């Protein structure tokens, strides 16, 4: 059986790969949790879990979706445990602003605020598609939905963003 992450060389290769994927994993966790600290905790836990089972992986290309699934599950588990309080979007943006305001344009912050305000059902497939480059079939598989349901959610996510950002959604119909 091919085991690219077995042995000492495999350890190094896996650690390198995780380091490369860490920004994506963190961002995915952030948009699930909408909280930087929670995202860091989730990624940390997910990487530790992955490390322990790396030798079972047989394909390098399968690592990213595998890790994303672990992140998603870890977030669900944490969410189940902690029952986070509901927070207002303005508060979420406020938490981000001190760090981001100096480096990012106002327009980016406005779009980020609009994405933070999306319901989870719309935000997650949008993140998988736009940020992670997943196809609609892959999103359906990841979320356990039909492809039709994914397309509907993606359409509605963009529709809501257009509306919130004042980008002329008058001719669209949900």
């Amino acid at each position, binding site marked *: 059986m091919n085991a690219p992450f077995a042995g000492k060389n495999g350890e190094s290769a896996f650690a390198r790969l*995780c380091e490369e994927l860490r920004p994506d994993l963190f961002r995915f966790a952030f948009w699930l949790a909408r909280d930087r600290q929670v995202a860091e905790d989730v990624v940390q836990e997910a990487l530790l879990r992955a490390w322990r*089972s790396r030798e079972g992986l047989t394909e390098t290309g399968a690592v990213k979706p595998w890790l994303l699934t672990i992140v998603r599950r870890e977030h669900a588990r944490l969410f189940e445990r902690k029952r986070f309080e509901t927070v207002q979007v303005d508060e979420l943006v406020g938490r981000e602003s001190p760090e981001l305001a100096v480096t990012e344009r106002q327009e980016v912050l406005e779009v980020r605020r609009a994405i933070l305000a999306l319901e989870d059902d719309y935000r997650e497939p949008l993140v998988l598609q736009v940020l992670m480059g997943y196809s609609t079939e892959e999103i359906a598989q990841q979320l356990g939905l039909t492809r039709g349901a994914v397309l509907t959610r*993606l359409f509605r996510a963009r529709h809501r963003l257009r509306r919130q950002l004042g980008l002329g959604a008058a001719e669209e119909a949900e």
Partner: protein
Amino acid sequence: MECLEFRKAAGADPTHLSPDARAHCDGCLRCAEYLRQTLVLDEKILAALRVPVPDRGPRIGRSSGAVPPAIDRRRWFALAASIVAGVAVGSLLWVAGPRESLAHAVVEHMSHEPDAMTTESPAAPSQVEEVLERGRIRLRPGIGTVSYASSCPFRGATVPHLVVQTDAGPVTVMVLRNEKVAAPVRFDEQGYSGAIVPAGPGSIAVIGTARANLDQVAERVLEAVEWSRD
């Protein structure tokens, strides 16, 4: 293709349009403009999604202490020796049928719960208790050493996911209150042997790599699980 249909397609997946959608777009100025706006919106979305990543990332590797101790099989046997033999409930009727989607989902779940099978020391009693309580079950003595306990999202429900140490290695047990099966189902998938048996209001899945031991473990689990009323 009509304009509305095009906009639904472009609004859902603007970079992967069908040939029909492309043809419509080529002949409709308003839809072409809609597509252009959507692609601009996607650029903005992408920029917004790229939140800064903290410098101090979690490090993995031997220096992180993340590496579990080598598995000592003698310890498994020692743990297994402490298992109180359950009362046999008769031979289970194993149905060697085709792959079930439920069985597939169980194995898929396991493959994304990688550390569960590599932990051999007993799980914290408080953790086990919490998982059992959330799953509305209790365990009578006799199931063996529980080395892993987690409340896991599974097909829209939160289910207890346990790993029990046996003399033939770790065995995964998932208590599926919301998944009914008409008869026991046996499966072999992705290198695992497993069984899903009717139990209480739903079913229990038992999965391991040591097939010869599975019947015995399933019997023991069925005997040990006590269901609370809904």
